[in-house]
């Protein structure tokens, strides 16, 4: 079974440009998450999709970030315009749906996209 895949693995762009990151979750996983690790700090949650709906986007830093998951399969995260502080590693994760009373869903992470904004 294929794991979570992310594209590209690395992206170097200039401040003010636009970048789109893609995540393909494990097939059949309704839950899809975006996280990022900036400047060696802790990994922080960005948002959570259940199928195509945004369940929780409380971690999105500002309106320069736009995430979509059309059709409930792969997801994209667009940064427009990119700023220097957006540099970091962006992780995507997916999990199967679990009953709320048993929230032990394991989140499987992709390899991440390393974004460098110059």
């Amino acid at each position, binding site marked *: 079974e294929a794991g979570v895949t*992310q594209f590209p693995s690395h992206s170097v762009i200039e401040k003010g440009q636009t970048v789109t990151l893609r995540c393909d979750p494990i097939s059949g996983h309704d839950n899809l998450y975006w996280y990022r690790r900036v400047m060696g700090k*802790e*990994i922080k949650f960005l948002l959570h999709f259940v199928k195509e709906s945004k*369940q929780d986007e409380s971690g999105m830093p500002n309106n320069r970030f736009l995430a979509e998951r059309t059709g409930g399969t792969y997801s994209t995260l667009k940064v427009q315009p990119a700023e220097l502080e957006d540099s970091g590693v962006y992780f995507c994760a997916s*999990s199967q749906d679990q009953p709320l009373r048993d929230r*032990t869903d394991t989140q499987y*992470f992709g*390899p991440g996209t390393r974004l460098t904004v110059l």
Partner: protein
Amino acid sequence: SQQGEEDPQALSIQEGENATMNCSYKTSINNLQWYRQNSGRGLVHLILIRSNEREKHSGRLRVTLDTSKKSSSLLITASRAADTASYFCATPLSGSARQLTFGSGTQLTVLP
């Protein structure tokens, strides 16, 4: 605010020795998970321990959970050079949210 904090921040040991990493958290949880990140790669899920469990084993890994102290430990026995990585504990937020909150991680270096 940061939910999990690992201790130590960095650990260097010789191959064959055991490595112990600790994690403390702030709020009540229903499970705690440990992940590993090798340099330049993604996060790999190692083990999940539920709040009603005190100890769990998986291969050379042993995880303990003390909910009264809000702490967990990860023990890697008979370490190998390939165990060199960053190790993170993660806990889900309370309520219905499924997001994980990560600590800052322990960088483990196993010297051959």
